[in-house]
């Protein structure tokens, strides 16, 4: 059964960003270890694509690679392409990258404290890219900075703009960084866990702000998040990653209503839900843990934890294959069933 996906138009909208078979490895004295082993996805104008996956599977490294900011050494991009409006940014000189960062592609970093400069005021950090990319005068840029802080619901923005990161609460720092990323009106917004430090009412406000940017100027949003409720509420499409690879790529409806990959199913089953009763629900999680980088098994990396694993799973890596026009999955067991069912249908 293929559920309808009303938000997806028939003709494919403009692809703003395409990641094609991206390979990243860590090169350390202990040796070489692959982190991303063929990451591929497309991001369309005005679309929100969510990336979900187990902690440590490579979401942040993949996001940083889009800006060529993955820490190098040890990280090195060894293959693939990242096409921004058709142009491979992996081949651009560093100088051109500086024009892209913060302007074409802006990023909300996972840990605000690592991204904010502790010795500069919040305002200073928002103003700088505005003057650089948008050629605003200093005064106009400061005005815009105050306005941005107000939009992300920071009280008394006129005062806060002059404060240093340590004077803000965790959630305010996160919002200051969001203000910084949104200020220039980027074509692509990469948001790595943007609302982890926010309560649900302010989170709703921030998500509305991002949706507004999408509507007004067609910003494409790459949303990395562990919060599957946020995914359900805001994403058009979802990419599920496991140990450096995409294991499922589907419209948000198909993903929630008909998840196919055993990892995705385990993930969805682990969502804690608000209940009206008072009995505490017990959540199991998926037994085992994600293999560390450098010790990934051959074949499907999920096989050691998978209850459906068949021999093929331990031998070769399953390819990402279509199960519907808007749903792809990389799993031997799923493919096995599909082919069997198709065979049955053909015989009848």
């Amino acid at each position, binding site marked *: 059964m293929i559920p309808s996906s009303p938000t997806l138009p028939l003709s494919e909208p403009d692809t703003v960003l395409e990641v094609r078979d991206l390979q990243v490895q860590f090169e350390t004295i202990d040796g070489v270890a692959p982190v991303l082993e063929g990451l591929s996805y497309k991001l369309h104008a005005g679309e929100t694509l969510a990336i*979900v*996956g*187990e*902690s*440590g599977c490579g*979401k*942040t490294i993949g996001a940083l690679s889009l800006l060529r900011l993955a*820490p190098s050494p*040890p990280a090195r991009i060894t293959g693939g392409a990242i096409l921004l409006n058709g142009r491979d940014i992996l081949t651009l000189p560093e100088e051109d990258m500086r024009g892209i960062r913060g302007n074409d592609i802006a990023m909300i970093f*996972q*840990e605000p*404290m*690592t991204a904010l400069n502790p010795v500069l005021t919040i305002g200073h950090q928002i103003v700088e890219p505005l003057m650089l990319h948008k050629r605003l005068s200093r005064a106009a840029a400061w005005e815009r900075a105050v306005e941005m802080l107000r939009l992300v619901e920071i*009280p*008394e923005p006129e005062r806060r703009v002059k404060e240093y990161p340590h*004077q*803000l*609460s*965790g*959630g*305010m720092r996160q*919002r200051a960084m969001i203000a910084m990323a949104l200020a220039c009106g980027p074509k692509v917004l990469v948001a790595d*866990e943007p609302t*982890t*430090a*926010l*309560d*649900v*009412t*302010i*989170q*709703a*406000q921030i998500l*509305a702000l991002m949706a507004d940017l999408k509507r007004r100027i067609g910003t494409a949003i790459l949303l990395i998040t*562990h*919060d*599957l*409720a*946020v995914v*359900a*509420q805001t994403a058009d499409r979802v990419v599920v990653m496991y140990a450096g690879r995409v294991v499922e790529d589907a419209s*948000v*409806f198909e993903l*929630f209503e008909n998840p196919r990959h055993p990892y995705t199913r385990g*993930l969805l089953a*682990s*969502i*804690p*839900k*608000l*209940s*009206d009763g*008072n009995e505490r629900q017990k*959540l*199991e*999680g*998926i037994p085992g*843990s994600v293999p*560390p980088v*450098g010790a990934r098994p051959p074949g499907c990396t999920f096989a050691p934890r998978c209850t459906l694993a068949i021999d093929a799973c331990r031998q070769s890596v399953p390819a990402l294959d279509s199960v519907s026009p808007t749903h792809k999955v990389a799993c031997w067991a799923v493919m096995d069933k599909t082919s069997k069912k198709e065979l049955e249908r053909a015989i009848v």
Partner: protein
Amino acid sequence: MSELSSSPPLLQVDDLIVRYPVKKGLLQPRKHVHAVNGVSFTVRRGETLALVGESGCGKTTVGRSIMRLVRPSSGAIRVDGIDVASLSRRQLKPYRRKIQMVFQDPYASLNPRMTAGEIIGEPLGNFGIAHGADRESRIMSLLERVGLGRSHFHRYPHEFSGGQRQRLGIARALAVEPSLIVGDEPLSALDVSVQAQIVNLLDHLQQEFGLSYLFIAHDLAVVQQISHRVAVMYLGRIVEIGETADIFRAPIHPYTQALLAAVPLPDPRKRRTIEPLRGEVPSPISPPSGCAFHPRCPLAEDRCRREVPRAQEFQAGHFAACHVMARNNQYAALQPVTA
């Protein structure tokens, strides 16, 4: 608020007030951020109390005060009945072992020059808990219990992912077998499957060793799942506190109601626009008069603008501070008047 058992609660916070000075201009009067404005609560042995509330309302400041990382302007923090402000440097050591914190910003709280093994091992050394091979095997087992595995032993914090760093912080807090863990958003960087594993681990430790948790969190589904009681903060004050089931079934304070109404559902067919709280987030430098929530409250009336509402009991153990709700409170009317 009444305590049923006769022994003192593990943690008792009494009318805690914390102000941060604000840089002032010449000739301007000295101003303060009223981060925490008279907060009182207890945590019993083996209990999990969740602290929730709007970003910037003072949750981390409460946690840091308990850790003695910020100096309260007034109020008392008692652990096993002893006022921690009165402790000398020497007396402080066992206290520090008893109470551990998992910090909101994992990266900033981990020494970048130490490996994971050293980070977890350091408190073991400081408190003389385990030595040599014994220490190493303890560290390994802690790493494994938080789902990190031995291969992470020699790695530095910057070589971890966000969620891995957060788990490193949890392992460090657990290492010294504390009585209370103050967890400041300790699960926020974890995917739901790993989160479930950690929740089960914390639950298990509570069952086995009677560990207590003060759990600061934004994810209300997780809060409902792991806490026994919930305290809701708004602009430096606790506006509602009670048993988890009561808070979720029958929230009293208009802010609590707004918070619960804004919880997003993990179902793409149930999309909805969440009505934002109207009005601006208030300033903690000059908090609104009376009930701090009044500028945004749908029920506000004149009295709310003038008078700070006091906490009232609505059901056994379920308190809220709201003038309008208090007027309709049946329970209070039934209680005998006490001095």
